[in-house]
């Protein structure tokens, strides 16, 4: 019997190649290509008065220098749209003042790092040398940095955007203000989360090759959505989509930043290749990634909450301000997610949320793993802890009393989620998850441990945080599966891979659905030459969307194989099964009549010409055939292959709970995470090892977001820590061992019962660690991340307030 693969901790088939240095990333491509470097604005807000390239002209190897005027001229001459502002990818009715950037600055720069001049040269050294010699004259404008300055609106980022407000959005269920006013207990909290960023090991990168004879363009880009880049590049360059292909090579991490597209470079590099008739390539360096890609997280929140004597929520009103940076190409996805997902596993009573999305002269903000949820989770969980503190109740108990119960599933929160669909939880067992978490971390015994530690002069604290995460958003994904005549199974899906182990996970699904050995399956992702219809890799959606798509595709291939084999084996389709890649009659075991899938593939494709031994069996004189039937039966097509799509009605909602134990140094205020416990429910587990790996990585980023990572902007808009020397991230030494327990409540929305797992680990980090520090110190924590220095100053403030 074939071993069932789904649910097994199968080792990732990608890893031998990747860990032995045989990955092929963007910069491994195109050593013969011209290379690109950019003149980027050193100022946060300025008009570009003049660009003088004279001194650059002597640089040996210089090929071309482009500014915005060239893009305009190109539009006049060739009908391209490279000069026009980049698309606003996700419009929304409340996004009344959406502004997007130009590929090269159109007379004004709005953040440090915005591209002004593109230089093409024989290599990157020459390109950088030329960049250094190009002089740009600026007329300075007042930079607007941070939510407070944007909100005050004494100066504007864009002259035509009053108040710096791109969007103001309200969602409500019931009359929250009235419910709060009528509640026996009320609290107000101000909560802040600072900026961080995805920071993949590999930055962005683009390589483009124009074939003038074929009039076709091939673009390689380190992206999370090759199909959509293809459409965008074709539209921008005024090329028929049919003549453009986009291939995603190995991608060294995405974490959200590479879902944004087309990046200026994704338009400019192919455009230069087209105009120069030579391959052109650009590889982002680290500083460029800091100042010209995207950040996330920065938000200020004000909470009003009303609750009863038991700590049950009666009304919740949240207003928050989202700093989306200089432009807003990705729309309102992040704040919409915060505003909806902050509800977590709770029933909020009457709920009102309002946010403003504000322009600042800083790098754009687009989803980073977690995408607005870490902020929402922080807001809700800090509120839960504040309620518990106010009423003198156990923090776990207050949470439990507000949980949606399993028998209330599916539960409609009455809001509209980021996919434009209902915020409707499909499944989950929150009391069950909490029980597991309390058991795992030893919640009920912690008070004694804390007292004991106190007696030893140590400060320890515990905190927890719960989240619900909408995953697997639509609209769809697809799959194509073909069985080759040697029995190899070739699987393609359109979305891309950034190292998550998709080749392994998708092969596990196909192995089970089709009944073939795992080792015979080859999976391709993110190559538009292979599969043209897809959305992309974001929102923890690959297992849900492409997993389901290849499952239904494998079922279609299986049906076709059985139809063909039933003729060959002279048995009814219902009596057949596929085991280990062989179709056989059920119950006959290994000695019964069988035909392997490779042979079925041969028979599926009636041939005139025999090109090898296997093909002989499908030629016209090979076997007697019914002379009255066409060789390809009506309704069938040649080849043992199929293509199917999966499109769910709405997202499926995963959930989880984290508990953290920290120790703080009484003298230095150093913060150490002693234990990190995770209870995780992502429905059916396809590969527990991959899921746990995703959790580990997410927790590491959560620890980073809680204790280390921040974008240190000076008031003039300079990013002061734009390097890995200055931007702190946790090392292995700062990431605790992660203790994991799973709860499985399968999703009813898809054929596999799966939910997304990619982002979950990062979501509750800041909330749980803040709670644990608060518990250790007895000091209220309202801002994250927190450094030892900040904790030290909080201690001083607290002492002064107390004395």
């Amino acid at each position, binding site marked *: 019997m074939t071993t069932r693969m789904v649910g097994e901790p199968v080792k990732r088939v990608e890893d031998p190649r990747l860990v032995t240095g045989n990955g092929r990333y963007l910069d491994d491509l195109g050593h013969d290509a011209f290379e690109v470097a950019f003149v980027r604005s050193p100022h946060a807000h300025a008009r570009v008065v003049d*660009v*003088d*390239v*004279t001194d*650059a*002209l*002597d*640089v*040996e*190897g*210089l*090929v*071309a*220098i*482009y*500014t915005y*005027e*060239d893009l305009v*001229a190109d539009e006049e001459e060739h009908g391209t749209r490279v000069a026009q502002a980049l698309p606003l990818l996700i419009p929304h009715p409340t996004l009344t003042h959406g502004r997007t950037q130009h590929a090269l600055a159109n007379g004004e720069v709005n953040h440090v790092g915005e591209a002004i*001049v593109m230089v*093409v040269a*024989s290599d990157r050294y020459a390109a950088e040398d030329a960049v250094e010699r190009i002089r740009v004259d600026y007329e300075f404008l007042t930079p607007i940095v941070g939510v407070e300055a944007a909100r005050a609106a004494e100066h504007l980022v864009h002259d035509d955007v009053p108040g710096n407000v791109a969007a103001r959005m309200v969602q409500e269920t019931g009359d929250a203000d009235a419910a709060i006013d009528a509640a026996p207990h009320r609290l107000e909290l101000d909560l802040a989360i600072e900026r961080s960023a995805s920071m993949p090991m590999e930055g962005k990168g683009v390589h483009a090759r124009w074939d003038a004879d074929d009039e076709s363009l091939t673009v390689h880009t380190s992206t999370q959505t090759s199909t959509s880049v293809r459409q965008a590049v074709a539209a921008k360059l005024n090329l028929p989509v049919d003549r453009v292909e986009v291939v995603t090579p190995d991608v060294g991490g995405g974490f959200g930043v590479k879902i944004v597209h087309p990046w200026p470079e994704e338009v400019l590099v192919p455009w*230069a290749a087209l*105009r*120069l*008739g*030579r391959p052109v390539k650009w590889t982002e360096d680290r500083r460029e990634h800091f100042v010209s890609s995207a950040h996330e997280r920065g938000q200020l929140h004000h909470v009003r909450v009303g609750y009863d004597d038991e700590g049950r929520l009666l009304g919740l009103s949240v207003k928050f301000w989202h700093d989306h940076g200089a432009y807003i190409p990705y729309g309102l996805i992040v704040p919409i997610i915060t505003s909806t997902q902050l509800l977590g596993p709770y029933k909020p009573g009457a709920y009102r949320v309002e946010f403003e999305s504000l322009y600042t002269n800083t790098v754009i903000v687009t989803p980073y793993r977690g995408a607005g949820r870490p902020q929402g989770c922080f807001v809700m969980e800090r509120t839960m802890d504040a309620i518990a503190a106010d009423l003198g109740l156990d923090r776990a108990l207050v949470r439990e009393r507000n949980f949606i119960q399993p028998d209330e599933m599916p539960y409609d929160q009455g809001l509209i989620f980021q996919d434009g669909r209902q915020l409707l939880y499909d499944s989950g067992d929150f009391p069950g998850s909490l029980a597991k978490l309390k058991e795992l971390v030893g919640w009920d015994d912690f008070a004694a441990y804390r007292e004991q530690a106190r007696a030893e002069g140590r400060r320890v604290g515990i905190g927890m945080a719960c989240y619900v995460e909408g995953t697997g958003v639509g609209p769809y994904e697809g799959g194509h599966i073909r069985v080759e005549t040697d029995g190899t199974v070739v699987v393609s899906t359109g979305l891309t891979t950034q190292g998550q182990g998709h080749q392994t996970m998708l092969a596990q699904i196909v192995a089970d659905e089709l009944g073939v050995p795992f080792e015979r399956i080859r999976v391709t992702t993110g190559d538009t030459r292979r599969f043209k219809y897809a959305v992309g890799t974001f929102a923890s959606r690959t297992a849900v969307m492409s997993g389901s798509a290849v499952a239904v595709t494998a079922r279609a291939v299986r049906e076709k194989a059985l139809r063909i084999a039933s003729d060959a084996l002279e048995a009814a389709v219902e009596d057949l099964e596929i085991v280990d890649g062989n179709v056989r009659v059920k119950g006959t075991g290994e000695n019964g009549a069988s035909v392997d899938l490779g042979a079925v593939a041969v028979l599926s494709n009636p041939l005139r010409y025999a090109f090898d031994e296997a093909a002989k069996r499908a030629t016209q004189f090979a076997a007697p055939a019914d002379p009255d039937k066409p060789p390809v039966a009506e309704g069938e097509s040649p080849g043992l292959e199929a293509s199917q799509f999966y499109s769910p009605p709405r997202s499926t909602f995963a959930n989880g709970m984290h508990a953290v134990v920290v120790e703080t140094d009484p003298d230095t205020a150093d913060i150490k995470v002693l234990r990190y416990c995770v209870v995780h429910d992502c429905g059916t587990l396809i590969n527990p090892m991959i899921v746990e790996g995703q959790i580990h990585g997410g927790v590491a980023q959560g620890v980073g977001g809680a204790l280390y990572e921040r974008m240190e902007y000076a008031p003039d808009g300079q990013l002061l820590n734009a390097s890995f020397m200055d931007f702190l991230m946790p090392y292995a030494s700062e990431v605790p061992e992660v203790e994991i327990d799973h709860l499985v409540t399968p999703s009813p929305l898809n054929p596999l019962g799966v939910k997304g797992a990619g982002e979950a680990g990062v979501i509750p980090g800041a909330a749980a660690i803040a709670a644990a520090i608060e518990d250790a110190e007895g000091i209220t924590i309202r801002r994250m991340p927190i450094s030892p220095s900040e904790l030290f100053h909080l201690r001083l403030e607290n002492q002064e307030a107390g004395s």
Partner: protein
Amino acid sequence: MKVSGTSTLKADPDTLWKALNDPAVLVATIPGCQRLEALGGDTFAMTVAAGVGSIKGVYDGQYSIADQAEPGTYLMRARGSGAAGTIDATVAVRLQEAEDDNGGTLLSYDADAVVGGMIGGVGQRMLTGVSKKMATEFFGNIDRYLAGERAAEPEAAVSTGSTTRGAVFTAPAAAPSASNDFVKGLLVGGAIALAGAVVGGWIAGRRR
């Protein structure tokens, strides 16, 4: 592409004008110019070697005076082509006495060029930058030439002022001054050399 600029030369307008009418001077001073041939009338053929990398090569061009306006102003048309592209330029040039008291000339030019092929794809600022640089270099060469710093006499040697049909002028082996840097440093090739020459130097037609 539009390029305009001014340059002050040491020679007075009359001396300058004579020099600019002398193909032997021109062939020695136009950056990258290898050969200049009078085709009769006001039309000349010219060969320029320039460029680096994939489009380094020899480019052929032709220019003529398309119009003649008020004294001291000239309107020229030039065409050139090479492996890397084509250029078609119209240039208005004006010679005036410089306002300083040194008896020099203020030369101003205003060119409108259409470029095609790969050269057309390298960016406007680069093209105008190269053209201006070429023009500046050319004027510098003229100044040095008239000051007697000529590197070597061209083969067709004696400066007669004649533009007899069929007269051929070729450059000395060592091109003057910074043109070597230009050849090494720029990719845009001979068509740009033509553009630079157009804006600066192809005013060998007769003053009327």
